[in-house]
């Protein structure tokens, strides 16, 4: 049934969830920009972030200090990523590998399986939640949990901070240089392998941040990163691999399309609408809305 109120509610809901998914996509696209590989285990870093948030809030800080737990959770995932990168990813560049892409795919899928099964073995089959003391917030006609609203605001802040760091700091300059040309950056004196480590850590840290922010909303369990990973990949295909503004805009587009489709067309095919959007974009602009063709020698 159509009503203006329902339309407005679903639009708002779609924008909010889209921004949250965009954080995940940003991590994927950022790693690709610098390290030139797809990390298929992003969902598992999301999952680690959510577990870290749960453990910090429930056993250490309490619900009122969730806002301290969030950066700590993201930081812990960053450190895990930075520790894993030299072991798993660096060999791609250190050794003379002929098929780097296949190597990255195999290694990150193996990491995915390892982390997921480890989590299932340790945490068991149950779901957890850090809970939230934040009350319901009215965004126009749409009631939204305080936790989701806070996650939305934190995501916007994180995206803004990320943008500023990329544009205004030396590290940001180095990362942008590496994204344009790894050899050029290396020639200019940038330690490209160290940069890879930082970029990988930052990328998975963004996924961990998404997990920490969404823990009270989508619960905490070993495979909670699966769907958000799929959304993340949909977003980078729509927005363009390597494009940060593209990730945000595509995220919002995906959230709105899925939300409106579920509300006004047929709810069981909610996820299908997103894939239809992906197909439409691929037909019109195969590199994504903000993506660019890349020439490789």
């Amino acid at each position: 049934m159509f009503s203006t109120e329902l339309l407005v509610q679903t639009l708002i809901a779609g924008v909010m969830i889209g921004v949250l998914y965009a954080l995940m996509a940003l991590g994927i696209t950022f790693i690709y920009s610098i390290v030139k590989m797809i990390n298929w285990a992003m969902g598992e870093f999301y999952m680690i972030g959510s577990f870290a948030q749960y453990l910090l809030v429930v056993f250490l800080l309490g619900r009122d200090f969730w806002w301290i737990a969030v950066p700590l959770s993201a930081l812990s995932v960053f450190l895990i990523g930075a520790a894993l990168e030299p072991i798993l990813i660096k060999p791609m560049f250190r050794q003379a590998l002929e098929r780097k892409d296949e190597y990255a795919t195999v290694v990150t899928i193996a990491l995915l399986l390892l982390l997921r099964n480890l989590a299932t073995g340790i945490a068991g089959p149950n779901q957890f939640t850090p809970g939230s003391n934040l009350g319901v917030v009215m965004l126009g006609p749409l009631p939204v949990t305080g936790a989701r609203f806070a996650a939305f605001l934190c995501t916007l802040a994180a995206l803004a901070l990320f943008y500023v760091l990329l544009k205004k700091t030396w590290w940001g300059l180095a990362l942008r240089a590496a994204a344009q040309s790894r050899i050029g950056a290396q020639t200019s004196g940038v330690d490209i392998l160290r940069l890879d480590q930082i970029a990988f850590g930052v990328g998975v840290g963004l996924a961990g941040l998404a997990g920490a922010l969404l823990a009270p909303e989508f619960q905490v369990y070993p495979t909670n990163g699966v769907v958000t990973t799929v959304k993340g990949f949909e977003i980078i295909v729509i927005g363009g691999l390597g494009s940060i503004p593209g990730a945000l805009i595509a995220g919002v587009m995906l959230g709105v399309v899925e939300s409106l489709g579920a509300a006004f067309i047929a709810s069981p095919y909610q996820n299908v609408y997103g894939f239809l959007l992906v197909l439409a974009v691929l037909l019109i602009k195969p590199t994504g809305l903000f993506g660019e063709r890349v020439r490789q020698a």
Partner: protein
Amino acid sequence: MKPITRALGSIAISALAGLTGSAQAADDTIKIGLEIPLSPPGDPAAGQLIRRGAELAVVYVNTVMKGVNGGKMIELVVQDSQGKTDVGVAAYRKLATEDKVIGVTGFFHSSVNIAVNEVAKEIGVPTIATQTSAADITAKRYEPAFRTHAIDPIRVEAFLEFAKKMGYKRVSLVAETTDYGIGIAEEMEKQNQAAKAGLELQKITFDHAATDLTAQLLQVKAFKPDLVINIGVGAPVDLIIDQATTVGILPTTPMLVSYDAPERPQFWKLHEKNGVGIYFIAYYSPKQKLSDIGEWMAKAYKEKYGETAIYSSLNGFGDVMILAQAAEMAKSTDPKAIIKALEAGTFKTWADSPVTFPDAPGVYYHNWSPPILILHYTKPNEDWQTAEIVVEHVGGKH
């Protein structure tokens, strides 16, 4: 003879001895297959609970009954269905053809059970559905298919009895798009019409893997129902409860959860603020009498796990016990003989009433069903054992 050759020869002989030993051991044990969800997208919590009961049945048969068929011990062979049909079918094939089990039980997801039964029809190793309720599991009248669980028609009879008792007129069904969810929603529509119950129904369906149901629940809110029936399994149950609270459906509109998920210990950890007022289906209450083996199981479960056994574990126990009794009755491990014994015999399970698998019409074929209860949480952190019993429905009149 070179040392390496000697070493290899020793290894070969040891392996052969081991194999021979294993074969000897295999002849002395009777294997029962347990196919359960142990990882998502299945419901691993349910799988673990069923497994606990099944393992206790093995202990009972081997230590109290001292085995079956002249003292042979039984052994459980466990496979993870992951809640996926393709994985479930592969698991059944392995159990039936490689592990040579006498029967496969433990099924929790209707989709998996239905797919497996299509293969069981060909292979012939019987299946006993532990907690799957879709009609097709027994309605197709496949000889190897059996069930010891409430079927959709009986569950929906309980829903309608509840709605009538409470005076509800407008009911929203929020159902996942699985055989279970769609089956219940369609059965509800069918019985509502056939019984002229006069309910105005809204059917909202969603993908089991969805993480955000705001759009769907806003439609429910716009419908202004008297009752919402939550027909999700696993994580979606909790998602619906939480997101229904956010959009303002709960706590003012009552919600009925379609199976016994709220009995699990994690329920109050996830819903400490919005769990009060929830109605839910249950198949067992401590207020009911157990059989002697049921009493044994309840005591052993409490000692081992420090919790009261819930239905999933009780029925997992019961189904392994039934297969063991069938093997004893048949004096054989041949699947055809097991099926004949299941059809002809009367079996003990956890409940005080005996189990039979009649050649009855339609969905009641090869089916035994416990009574359906509808329980109600009226205070925070309430123990399901003391929850108010709102409806006790005994169905299956055929």
